[in-house]
């Protein structure tokens, strides 16, 4: 039982952790090398890793995807510890629209223009912070979605993830509030009901044991008599 509970907890933790890692904003320090548009033919495998078509456009099985090609500083620990190494990274640039994830992004075309404005070479780099969510996976052909591009002074610029700080503080508070609510509900509503129920049950049982003798005898009178 304890083992099942442990497995269940680990599973919940992994799923929630994965969801948060996918959906919450992360920041990369990068320089943009080019922008492009490719046609994507989604399959059922990678469709869920893309958002919807541009706001107010129609949905088709095939659609053009804006991409931003970059060279970014590699990093450890969700981007908190930056390494000296550099590596290429490709971001998609899609509207998230009104639903999911709730970034309410409608300005993909403008963002693409901003990206074009920041294109630079290795000799004269223009460093930017790219806020994004999502994963890059070569086997599924999926890309993180760029949300915002902000110029910074250099490759060592510090980025404070304000949104994530507030989000996790809110999560802890919400959890504490939910627990307090549940406890109040149990103490004030469930326990009195249970007490009532167990009182009623005891009363019924008392009466039952009283009547039982009579009822039993009556019932027995219907049984077939053992043969002699």
């Amino acid at each position, binding site marked *: 039982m304890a083992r099942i509970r442990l497995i269940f907890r680990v599973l919940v933790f992994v799923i929630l952790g994965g969801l948060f890692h996918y959906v919450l904003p992360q920041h990369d320090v990068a320089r943009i090398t080019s922008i492009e548009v490719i046609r994507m033919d989604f399959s059922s495998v990678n469709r869920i890793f893309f958002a919807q078509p541009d706001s107010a456009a129609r949905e088709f099985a095939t659609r053009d995807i804006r991409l931003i090609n970059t060279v970014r500083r590699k990093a450890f620990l969700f981007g908190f510890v930056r390494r000296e190494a550099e590596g290429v990274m490709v971001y998609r640039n899609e509207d998230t629209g009104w639903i999911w994830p709730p970034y309410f992004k*409608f300005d993909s075309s403008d963002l693409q223009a901003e990206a074009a404005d920041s294109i630079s070479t290795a000799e004269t780099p223009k460093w930017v912070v790219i806020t994004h969510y999502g994963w890059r996976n070569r086997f599924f052909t999926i890309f993180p979605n760029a949300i*915002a591009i902000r110029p910074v002074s250099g490759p060592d610029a510090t980025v404070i993830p304000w949104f994530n700080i507030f989000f996790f503080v809110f999560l802890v508070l919400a959890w504490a509030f939910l627990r307090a609510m549940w406890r109040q*509900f149990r103490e004030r509503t469930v326990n009195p009901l249970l007490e009532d129920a167990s009182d009623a049950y005891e009363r019924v049982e008392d009466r039952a044991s009283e009547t039982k003798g009579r009822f039993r005898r009556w019932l027995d009178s219907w049984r077939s008599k053992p043969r002699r």
Partner: protein
Amino acid sequence: MALVRLVVFGFIALSVVYVAVWLYSRSVRREKLEKRWEAENPGGDRTARDAYVEKGMAEYHAGLRPKLILLVYVIPAVLVVAALIATNWN
């Protein structure tokens, strides 16, 4: 259409939160009144206690606090607008 969906389902979800918080706040207030009465009149008369609690609850419902629970609807709406501006502002 997506906006309509967001508003409808958001309203339903927030209504669940609203009702839960409303019930919780009421329950906490009632418990507080009962405890205060017990502290002031230990082993006091039951009907007097009920009258005290009902009066306190009536005051609570007339006051500002239960109306503050409406912030459950206001704050997410403000956050959505803020996100909309923050993401799309150039």
